[in-house]
């Protein structure tokens, strides 16, 4: 099987490990035949199936564990960007990537973020010229998630056939359509700080209340992120600003809410800011520090929700 060109960003929709191995195997072999660099990040079960399919040639592939790579959406994306940039600099020829997101057991908010980064790959990875294949298991992927997968990828591969995705939309449209107008309100037991005087007060409150719920390192990350988000709310948002903090299972969650209309661009803070940018670092930094960052803007104002575990 040969792939149509350009094989820029394709979703591999499979129903079994064998179907995965056939589709992924063809993609990898095409790359290896052309002396390309191949990186495969997938589940251990799919990695085993693909190794079986590739035989000795699996030694020519760089392997990554999806459970590790996809742990935190913001960190995951930066890792892919860095790895592809590194490979583009040090290797000759094209780079092929298989990246399989694992959604099982993850809250919808995390899946939403992972899919947003997948949509972002269309633009963000273009400079590297990489071919990207994103496997999704049709048996475990719910219909609403599958619709987003088809909207995020220009090409779909099913049962060995690759075709244009009829519902593909550009990144800005994907983000706009998936923007939230509200998040569930904080629970009644949340600790709430009304109208903080300044950003330092927010950091102190988060540090004091969050102590002992997560490790010191993760608390320091949350304190920093809460400060960044509060800085945005206090400078660009509309008063009153409210901070709420609570424990959700093993996660410490922090809401920063203001009365304003929110971010002018739903893609704000998803891509690394230019090194010497004067602003726009705060939200991006928060996405590198937290396990998950969610934003919602509606008539009730704007909320940024930070999660750390």
């Amino acid at each position, binding site marked *: 099987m040969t792939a149509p060109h350009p094989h820029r960003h394709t979703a591999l929709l499979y129903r079994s490990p064998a179907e995965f191995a056939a589709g992924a195997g063809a993609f990898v072999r095409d790359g290896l035949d052309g002396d390309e660099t191949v990186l495969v990040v997938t589940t251990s079960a799919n990695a085993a199936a693909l190794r079986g399919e590739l035989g000795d040639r699996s030694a020519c592939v760089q392997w990554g564990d999806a459970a590790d790579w996809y742990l935190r959406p913001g960190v995951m994306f930066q890792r892919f960007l860095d790895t592809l940039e590194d490979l583009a600099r040090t290797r000759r020829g094209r780079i092929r990537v298989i990246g399989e997101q694992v959604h099982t057991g993850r809250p919808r908010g995390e899946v939403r973020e992972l899919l947003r980064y997948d949509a972002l790959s269309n633009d963000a990875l273009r400079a590297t010229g990489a071919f990207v294949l994103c496997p999704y298991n049709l048996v475990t992927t719910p219909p609403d998630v599958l619709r987003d997968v088809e909207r995020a990828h220009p090409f779909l591969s099913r049962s060995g056939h690759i075709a244009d995705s009829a519902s593909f939309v550009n990144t800005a449209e994907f983000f706009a359509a998936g923007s939230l107008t509200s998040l569930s309100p904080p629970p009644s037991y949340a600790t709430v700080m009304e109208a903080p005087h*300044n950003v330092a007060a927010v950091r102190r409150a988060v540090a004091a209340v969050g102590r002992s719920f997560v490790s010191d390192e993760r608390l320091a990350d949350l304190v920093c992120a809460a400060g960044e988000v509060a800085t945005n709310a206090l400078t660009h948002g509309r008063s009153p600003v409210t901070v709420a903090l609570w424990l959700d299972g093993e996660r410490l969650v922090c809401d920063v809410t203001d009365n304003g209309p929110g971010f002018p661009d739903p893609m704000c803070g998803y891509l690394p800011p230019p090194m010497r940018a004067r602003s726009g670092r705060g939200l991006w930094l928060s996405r590198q520090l937290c396990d998950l960052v969610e934003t919602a803007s509606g008539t009730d104002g704007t909320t940024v929700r930070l999660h750390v575990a």
Partner: protein
Amino acid sequence: MWNDRRRLDEVSPLADPDVGASRPGLVSRDEQQLVATIDPRGTLHLVGEADIATEHVVRAALEQLCQSAPPHRIDLRGLEFADARSVGLLAGAAASAAVHLVLMSPRPPVARVIEILRLAGIPNVDIEDA
């Protein structure tokens, strides 16, 4: 409300507000939050916390520091916190070819922001651990 500094009542003082008032080389300070001094050897010391409320302190201190010849040493041992904006000011200062910043001994929370914002990737920035 955040810039009304008389109302920093919830902020526990990290540095004695009087520290630096009589210290030679004091560049600038924000009440209670950040003190910047340049010692006789030309090293800038930042003590306290750097964020949007103290942006003017960092800005003024950098301006003065960078008037002398490189390298421009900044002692970060006493800096307990720095936000993206403050670290961005350092990156901005290093945009000038005449500047060579040496960031000394950042504490873990500051080192983390410096690392994520990739200051080490700027040619005229060096980071020295303790």
